[in-house]
């Protein structure tokens, strides 16, 4: 079943046609991604512009304001314009990269987002690479020998880690390795991305950031890799009964070679899509983990926005997070087509 509008379209059009329909395929995927982004904008507009009862009241909360000032602010925010006009202004501004003005930082949301993008990419990137490596390896191992002791331990551990809130795991790791309990001394820094007392450049800075990165990325890996184990394990088990594996064994290949050369490449395909589809989890992980460790990324920015609540900032992070997931899904569709000849042939 096609998951997106355009996927169905591409399928219907592409029947019987071979490689030549790459461009229409990419085009339809791109169109679907754009539609998704527009829907995100509509949802963002409804959430942040239509639903709050009185933005001016929230904005001026706790400060004495005269009636004239209130009218002035309403005029500035364009709150008296018709809804469609406000929506068009909002879409236009977003496409230009103007995400509004943060109430608490007194700074444009776009510049705040840009500042925080690097740390988030560093953290989620490290965590993704590590958890994919760990998750796929464990998943292949436990799927190939499902029911074995190794499988039961791996599956049990992933289930336990899945059942735990990310932020709680973060706090426990913080107590254990940063504050130190009992015989364990304080090993790692508690929060932030670097020690302000050290120089902010050169080799010392890299080592310092790496030290700060250990606990946040460990927390994210522990929560995320469990998903990959489950996905990989299931698709290995799905491949197990396939006749081509019997053929491979009949040729006299060792068990190891059958697994590595024949089962894994086929089982990897559904896993790749699932991994991309689970990117939303990574975003959630970034928000909770960065909040616990005060890691100065987009997730922590969301946390800071929530405390006020700073609606323009929240809207900005919502749009950025949604856009990144949409882009990743688009990438997944494209990559998948190159990986799986069967999709191309369809």
């Amino acid at each position, binding site marked *: *079943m096609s*998951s*997106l*509008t355009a996927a169905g379209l591409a399928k219907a059009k592409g029947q019987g046609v071979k490689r030549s329909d790459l461009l229409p395929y990419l085009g339809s995927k791109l169109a679907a991604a754009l539609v*998704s982004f527009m*829907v*995100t904008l509509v*949802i*963002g507009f409804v*959430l*942040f512009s239509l*639903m*709050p009862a009185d933005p001016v009241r929230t904005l001026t909360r706790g400060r004495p304001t005269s009636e004239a000032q209130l009218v002035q602010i309403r005029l500035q925010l364009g709150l008296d314009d018709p809804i469609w006009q406000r929506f068009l202004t909002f879409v236009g501004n977003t496409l230009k990269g103007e995400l509004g003005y943060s109430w608490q930082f007194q700074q444009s949301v776009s510049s705040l987002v840009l500042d925080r993008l690097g740390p988030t990419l560093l953290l989620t990137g490290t965590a993704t690479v590590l958890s994919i490596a760990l998750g796929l390896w464990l998943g292949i191992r436990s799927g190939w020998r*499902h*029911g074995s002791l190794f499988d039961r331990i791996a599956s049990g551990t992933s*289930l*336990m880690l*899945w*059942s*735990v*809130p*990310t*932020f*709680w*795991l973060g*706090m*426990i790791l*913080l*107590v*254990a390795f940063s*504050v*130190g*309990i009992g015989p364990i001394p304080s090993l790692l820094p*508690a929060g932030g991305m670097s020690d302000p007392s050290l120089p902010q450049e050169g080799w010392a800075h890299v080592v310092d950031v790496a030290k700060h990165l250990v606990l946040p990325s460990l927390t994210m890996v522990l929560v995320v890799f469990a998903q990959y184990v489950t996905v990989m394990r*299931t698709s290995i*088990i799905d491949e197990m009964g396939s006749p081509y594996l019997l053929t491979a064994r009949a040729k006299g290949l060792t068990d190891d070679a059958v697994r590595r050369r024949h089962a894994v490449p086929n089982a990897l395909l559904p896993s790749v899509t699932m991994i991309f589809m689970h*990117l*939303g989890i990574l*975003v*959630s992980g970034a*928000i*909770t983990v960065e*909040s*616990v460790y005060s890691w100065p990324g987009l997730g922590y920015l*969301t*946390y800071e926005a*929530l*405390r006020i*609540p700073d*609606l323009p900032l*929240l*809207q900005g*992070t*919502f749009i950025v*997070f*949604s856009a990144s*997931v*949409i882009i990743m*899904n688009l990438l997944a569709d494209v990559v998948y087509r190159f990986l799986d000849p069967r999709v191309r042939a369809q």
Partner: protein
Amino acid sequence: MSAATNAPAALDVPRHHAFSRFCRAFAKRPAGLAGLGLLVAFGVLALVAPLFIGDDQLNVIKVDGPQLSPPVDGYPLGTDQAGRSVLLLVIWGSRESLSIGLIATALTVVLGSAVGLLAGHYQGWIGKILMHVTDWFIALPSLPLAISLSAVLGQGAASITIAIAVTSWTATARLVRAQTLAVEARPFIERAKVLGAGNTQIMIRHVLPNVMPLILVSSTLTVASAILSEATLTFLGLGDPTSVTWGSMLQAAFLGGAVTAGAWWYLMPPGIAILIVVLGFTLVGRAVEHVLNPRMVGR
């Protein structure tokens, strides 16, 4: 399942048989039974909590325990910053955490099933539009959406519940739609149509009972993730600041410096409570899934 629907005229007898067969099969799955046991224990504890926990133990002004103390006599799990017993707080917190989880799941399942049934039954433009809406919601990252929604709706249990439901109904909707399509292809639906059954009657009397087992499985798993989401949203400061839930305990601990103080006795219990309940629902859900779907044997 099939026995129950092939003979709706024979009333409850085959349905009863199917149910007892289901129970016997479920009883053979030790993991599922263990999960059920954990859940029953927590449920009973949450229900009887008002018998031994009152305002005297929960009101920060009335309590007289040591502040942020490790486990001592009379406080088996230690105390929080205000001197309240962590054990009693965890038991009390189970009430709201569980009820938010269950209510959010009920909302999710009703919303998801309704969309799924309609999309599966009306395969024309109504179904197409509903599936597009579902796909758009799937593409959105759920935590930022839930955070934004409950921030806009204001702090409190109600807005958290709504936020959870709005972000998690899509899985149920897709599942129910797929199953509805499968059921509607069967001959007995055609028979019902020939005999003059309307759209509503087909959906409610014929399709829904067949989709129900699947909804049951997915809802057990939904409770697990709803409880996790509740804890996360409350921890991020979106819950009612005056109520005691597992999420709000962890938030209070975090903001109150329990981490820096190394107060593991304060941090562990709420997290372990969440772990046990989520694990319980997941184990029960998986066991039910295995019982209802014989093809899953060996997984």
